[in-house]
């Protein structure tokens, strides 16, 4: 069982790592690269806490092998803020108290960002269906949905 050498881009930085063939991208991010912002809530693609984008496409990093990242562009929660300036979604989540325990928050933020990049003006229903793969057990989703819609409105105004 030999490790695989992977060269990829994470949050704009060129990254190289070695990983075992069966290791998921989530394992690589958390255990090899120390990027623990992506969380494992289920390991089976049912909770969305490990959401990242790969070449701009939202995926569960637990459902992708680390080896598959070769040559791809990965974006994680760690790359969402620009230095000390929070992304509007991050700011709105704080303003709306859209997190309680915060474990699902990184995944929801990554997923919401992917939504707004595809659809800057989502309806409540579109937002709810887009985020259906991100389980949150604390908030009942109410404030989460409000925060995403509010961030979308602010981003539309700013653009």
């Amino acid at each position, binding site marked *: *069982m030999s490790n695989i050498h992977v060269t990829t881009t994470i949050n704009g930085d060129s990254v190289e790592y070695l990983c075992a*063939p069966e290791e998921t991208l989530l394992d690589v991010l958390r255990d090899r690269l120390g990027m623990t912002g992506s969380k494992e809530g289920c390991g089976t693609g049912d909770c969305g806490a490990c959401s990242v984008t790969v070449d701009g496409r*939202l995926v569960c990093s637990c459902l992708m092998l680390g080896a598959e990242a070769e040559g791809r562009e990965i974006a994680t929660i760690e790359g969402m803020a620009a230095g000390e300036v929070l992304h509007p979604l991050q700011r709105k989540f704080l303003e709306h108290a859209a997190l309680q325990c915060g474990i699902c928050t990184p995944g929801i933020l990554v*997923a919401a960002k992917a939504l707004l990049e595809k659809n800057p003006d989502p309806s409540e229903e579109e937002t709810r*269906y887009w985020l*259906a793969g*991100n389980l949150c057990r604390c908030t009942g989703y109410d404030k989460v949905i409000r925060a995403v819609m509010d961030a979308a409105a602010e981003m539309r105004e700013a653009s």
Partner: protein
Amino acid sequence: MRYEAPQTVESAVSILSATPAGCHVLAGGTDLLVRMRAGMSEPEVIVDIKRIAGMHEISAEEGGWRIGAAVCGAELGEHEGVCAAWPGVVEALELIGSTQVQGRATLAGNLCNASPAADSVPAMVAAGAVARVAGPDGTRDVAVQDVPTDPGKTSLGRGEFVTSIFLPARPERASDAYLRFIPRTEMDIAVVGCGVNLELDADGTCTQARVALGAVGPKVILVEDAAAALAGSALDDAALERLAAACSQAASPIDDKRGTVAFRKHVAGVLARRAAIIARDRARGEA
């Protein structure tokens, strides 16, 4: 375990042929990785087919559409041509899992996983879709309904894998629809799934229909009686009633954690009726 990402079909076939039992094809990986994690699959080799040229392509062919084995649900949903011609197939694939899963899951993978509850398979069977299979003896085309044989089993031979799915050309006034029943609004495996594909003539009479059911038998069921119930009708209430009855009759489900026999048989008819109405309205250009 070994991970291989060949760049050609030939090279993929040769790796697959060399380790027939312990070799698994990786397309979207949304089933394979879950099985591996649960210890249900322990492949010796994983062949990632996403680096093979053409696997991500959707191309027009003979009036229909050829969809590469690595085209994910999100990509298919963004393709205007396929969405216009085969909305039922597209919505079936798009129902699988979350937005995240849509970034990975493929028609070919859903087919080859051979789950009786696979969402896209009844829609593809109703559509008369054909899988192109590459193998040691070259390529062959197989009707989608002949690919799965039993839960988790396919008719693919040693060294073979699906390289694309072909959706045939559409006549005028034809459309399809897929509906499934799940307890929540998202994130579940179908308790019952139903794909309906219809063609109408100029005065709205159904000239041809294909109806397929999922999750109510060991593999997808193409319900001939249901098609017969619709063909020649104006898709009126009486015809829809016969359709529902035929589907409830044809369903041969089991009791399990996701539903009971009685529930599944009943809902098979309900969904067939509802899907037929959607397909009819689409074919009429009303939806």
